């Protein structure tokens, strides 16, 4: 009796698991299959193309035929610069919040708490109008600044929470030995905060990478696009006439990012659980 129930339970589990695997892998296989499809559109193709070809990938890598490589470079550039700038600012701000008691601290923390709840693209009218007025429309600088500003509240909270767990006695003893504030920050606290710095690096790199709306608002000319905007334009303009090219482009984005993600997945989970903010 007990045994039969157990077999039934396992059989049911495996059916669900197999169904889920099919649902998850089908879109992925379909897009990979499409990318090897010789035609430009998908009409008359099957999921495993009979005469598979790499020509769409070659087309993407040919600067004369597509801006894809430029978009890739733009995206990497924006992500790395945003990451570096954010991490520097976040560490400095979080250190102040964690280690000092100063006038305005409580109000500052409260402001950060509320700001992290409003997505910064909610003010997209303002961002657009301001960029337009300051001449920063269609520049990567505007995008980097907006991403960094948007990253500060949430990540500062995350970092401050971590720094609070590093014992203050370490600071005190360093101070006894004559270390100044900057030295304590740089040589004592920051090296101990490395795990959280890694998490914040990851977040501030991936957020601009996957953002669509701000890049779409701020970037106008095709050679300035990021991958998200470029890929969207590719499929939106042509009504599916360049779908196979789009498919190849998608695969080239999804593969490296997925590998990066899977290898660092435990940082994501721990960071998101600690911050409890965005998903």
């Amino acid at each position, binding site marked *: 009796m007990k045994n039969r129930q157990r077999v039934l339970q396992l059989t049911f589990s495996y059916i669900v698991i197999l169904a889920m695997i099919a649902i998850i892998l089908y879109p992925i296989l379909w897009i990979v299959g499409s990318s090897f499809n010789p035609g430009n559109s998908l009409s008359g193709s099957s999921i495993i193309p009979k005469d598979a070809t790499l020509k769409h990938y070659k087309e993407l890598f040919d600067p004369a035929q597509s801006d894809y490589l430029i978009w890739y470079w733009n995206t990497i550039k924006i992500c790395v610069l945003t990451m570096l700038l954010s991490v520097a600012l976040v560490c*400095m701000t979080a250190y*102040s919040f964690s280690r000092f008691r100063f006038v305005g601290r409580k109000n500052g*923390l409260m402001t950060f708490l509320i700001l992290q709840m409003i997505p910064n693209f909610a*003010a*997209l009218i303002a961002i657009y109008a301001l960029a337009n007025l300051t001449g920063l429309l269609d520049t990567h600088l505007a995008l980097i600044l907006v991403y960094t500003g948007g990253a500060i509240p949430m990540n500062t909270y995350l970092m401050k929470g971590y720094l609070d767990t590093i014992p203050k006695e370490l600071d005190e003893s360093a101070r006894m030995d004559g270390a100044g504030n900057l030295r304590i920050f740089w040589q004592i606290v920051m090296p101990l905060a490395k795990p959280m710095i890694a998490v914040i690096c990851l977040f501030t790199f991936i957020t601009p990478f996957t953002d669509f709306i701000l890049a779409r608002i701020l970037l106008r000319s095709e050679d300035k696009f990021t991958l998200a905007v470029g890929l969207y334009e590719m*499929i939106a303009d042509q009504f599916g006439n360049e779908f196979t090219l789009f498919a190849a482009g998608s695969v080239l984005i999804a593969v490296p990012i997925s590998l990066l993600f*899977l290898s660092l997945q435990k940082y994501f989970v721990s960071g998101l659980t600690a911050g409890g903010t965005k998903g």
Partner: protein
Amino acid sequence: MGERQQKINDEEQKKRQPKHQKKKKTQTTTNHRKIALGLSILPGFGQFYNKQIFKGSAFLILMASFFIAFSDLLQFGFWGLVTLGTDPNYDHSIVLLVEGILTLIVTILGLGVYAFNLRDAFKVGKQRDLNEEPNSIRQQYQNLVGGGFPYLMMTPGFLLLVFVVIFPILFVILLSFTNYDLYHSPPANLVDWVGFQNFIDIFNIPIWRETFFSVLAWTVIWTFGATTLQIALGIFLAVLMNQKGIIFQKTIRTIFILPWAVPAFVSILVFAGMFNETFGTINRDILAVFGLGDIPWLTNPTYTKIALIMIQTWLGFPFIFAMVTGVLQSIPNELYEAADVDGASIFQKFRSITLPLVLYATAPIMITQYTFNFNNFNVIFLFNGGGPAVPEQNAGGTDILISWIYNLTMTSAQYGKAAAITMILSLIVITVALWQFRRTKSFQEEDMM
């Protein structure tokens, strides 16, 4: 140096408490604090009175240069903010609005320094009343370096925050009280203050009212439907995978994480292709098998909504899955063994042990999933642009508030109305967020704040 300064601060704080009480009993004979405070109405003079020449001149120079540097901006900025320009040939209302906000920020900073000046004079005056020596220049310098360090560290981040986050928010708030749209748009025309007209219009003009409420209704259904489904699926699969006797556990878990690993914008665009009515694989390959080859996924709002909720479930469950898996592994086995002894069924065990523990550990994050989907622009816009179009309203059939705001701004140039809707949206999000954070433990811990 820093250590000594901190010690001084500590001692000061310890002293202050009893001093306070003593003062109440024996009235001080001198009244330096009030005189110093009064003189400080002219910045610096209170400090001169307290014989702190250096500090006083610093305040005086700071405030004087503030007025000299910003006198034009102060006059012109407030004029522009109030009138938004009078002559469309010369005045650009939006530039004036931006300058106005800048003036506001500068004024607040100035008032901050001024208040600090008053406070400082009063504090030092009080020290003198209590017959303490005012700090020497050396001590003042140490105070500045020690006490100023956190401010110094925060300045770059704070300034950036002011200009790219707080500035836009102020701009949107002010914009929602103007008539800025296609017909009132510089340089040809002026923008005017209209008070609450935008908010009144949204609730009074039939087309706006109907659009607003139908968009809001869908936003709510979308938020609850998609989020609840992704959470339920995530928990279900995590529990399923946590059973003993499942083979290839690690590989299967990795596969379940995959939808999270692929950047969302790529997956959504791929889904848009899959659901495409002419070449999409859903109609052509999968549903054709069942004889249902022509479902209008992208042209019928109801089908688009169903597709969107399914896609978001696909995109969102892996995060819940990964998180709940972590929680499950920390639940002690004894609980289940005890339940087995009592003869509990699987469902009883799940309902009374697993679910409460999981929800307790992850509730705050679950709630943020709801706020995230409430503003999930990417999936709505990339899948079908908020479409298909619906008659008798100015938003698409699957537009949620945030994507409707985007369309009002970028395609129909209804800036004022869009700003008003943004205000309503932010109000909803902030209310939910504050409600949530009042409940979390970290908010109540004293040291946290």
